[in-house]
């Protein structure tokens, strides 16, 4: 029973982080039409900024909030300085086929990932360093018996839950949220309605940048920080987004939790070596049963 609870809690807290990563990917995919492979490079970079601040004597929370802010600014800048010029219709007319044009931003995002990793290596040296957690990572103890979860797990789960609620309210209840959803769904109609789609697109990059930076801050205490540490998280987050449905923010969150739990239960009950094959298994089963993901493609469009 203890093993079960431990797997459940650690899976939920891991899953919460993957949910953030997947959500970040889905927001940029829907809002800007790009699968952003640089996302966890951005997160790594802002986590390094937090780490540098904390090492220089600032409090954890200063590092934490500056990193989130830096993550959103970096996201918006990547869109404005690199992605927007690349999607300029006139300039890409040279590329004859539609598929080649669609590949441009993907290749660019891979290039950005490489550049960010190299830059982090140059600025902060490539060896691993630890990153602090704001809450203890030992088992929570209640009346002298040790619980199967840590205060840090609780911290992660509650901060991610709060973020997800806030994001949902933002998209559903605010005018800017509506403008972003409209842009994601039909750019032409959005523009004809007076929505500045350049702005909403940059904003989706910024929100995604903040969400993935939060994921970086929450995952590095358990995995150390180096320019490449978050590569694996990106792969799992991407799988989570595909499992849940790349078109669906709710699906991304669901996919994140599913993968977190699968990984945790496999690690606890089988062995860590079986993790990859089980992720692949989940991906294959979902893609065969529902090729567009669990919540993907459930639109009400009638033709």
């Amino acid at each position, binding site marked *: 029973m203890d093993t079960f609870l431990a797997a459940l809690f650690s899976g939920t807290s891991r899953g919460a982080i993957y949910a953030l990563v997947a959500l970040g990917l889905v927001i940029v995919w829907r809002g800007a039409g790009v699968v952003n492979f640089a996302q966890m490079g951005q997160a790594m970079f802002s986590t390094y900024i937090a780490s540098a601040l904390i090492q220089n004597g600032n409090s954890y929370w200063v590092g934490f909030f500056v990193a989130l802010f830096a993550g959103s600014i970096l996201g918006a800048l990547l869109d404005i300085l690199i992605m927007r010029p690349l999607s300029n219709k006139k300039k890409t007319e040279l590329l004859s086929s539609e598929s080649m044009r669609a590949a441009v931003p993907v290749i660019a995002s891979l290039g950005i990932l490489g550049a960010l990793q190299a830059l982090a290596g140059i600025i902060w040296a490539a060896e691993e360093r630890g990153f602090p957690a704001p809450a203890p990572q030992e088992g929570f103890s209640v009346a002298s018996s040790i619980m199967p979860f840590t205060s840090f797990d609780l911290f992660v789960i509650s901060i991610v839950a709060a973020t997800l609620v806030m994001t949902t309210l933002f998209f559903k209840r605010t005018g800017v949220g*509506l403008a972003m959803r409209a842009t994601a769904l*039909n750019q*032409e109609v959005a*523009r*004809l309605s*007076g929505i500045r789609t350049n702005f909403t697109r940059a904003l989706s990059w910024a929100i995604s940048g903040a969400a993935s930076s939060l994921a970086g801050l929450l995952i590095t205490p358990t995995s150390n920080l180096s320019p490449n540490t978050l590569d694996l998280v990106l792969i799992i987050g991407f799988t989570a987004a595909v499992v849940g449905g790349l078109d669906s923010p709710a699906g991304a969150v669901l996919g994140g939790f599913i993968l977190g739990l699968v990984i945790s239960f496999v690690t606890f009950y089988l062995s860590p070596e079986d993790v990859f094959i089980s992720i692949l298994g989940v991906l294959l089963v979902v893609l065969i049963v529902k090729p567009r993901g669990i919540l993907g493609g459930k*639109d009400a469009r009638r033709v």
Partner: protein
Amino acid sequence: MLEINSLTTSFGSVVALDGVSMSVQESKITTVIGANGAGKSTLLRTISGLEHPAKGSITWDGKSIIGWKPEDVVRAGIAHVPEGHAVISELSVEENINMGSLFRRRVNKKDVAAALEETYHLFPRLQERRKQLAGTLSGGERQMLAISRALVSRPKLLLLDEPSLGLAPLVVEQIIDCVNTLCRSTGLTVLLVEQNANTALGVADHGVLLALGKVVADRPAAELKADSSLRAAYLGY
């Protein structure tokens, strides 16, 4: 109030608009008619900034709007309802309408609410279905929704692209009636594109006949409607 001069828009080697000159008078309904592929939609899309012309000028309220982004053209008072009931299926009816007034919600909150009420008054069926996803609406309701979205931006000029497309005659009449009433009661200026020439010329003040991207007739609507030889030559009936 809208002046178009020798406007030319091409897609690669296809010249969709070939030196079009015409004007739209304030508080009047002007209709552009013509066969499939005549360039009617391209004309509206060029005015609203969705397509970029190779040559020519578009002057709105004394300002050239060539090269403006679509979002800036709407903000200047020209609302475009594109061909094919352009609504966003995955958003609710009310969200679709609200989309059109997002850009001015901070400037004039009260008027945004008033505009929503007015459209519901105009199309009560939309109010009954306000929480429903737009994708579940009928074709006629979707056209009403697309028009509502345009109206809440409080346009001075409404560009309507084939509102009758795929709708039953009764619904077409209802929608055209609404537009007509709006124009006559509020002074809204309308540029109506139609293939259904009789219906359009029936409500319009002025008619422009387009063929292969060129203006072949530009006259009062009643005159154009009476000219059976032009109709036979360009519209085939």
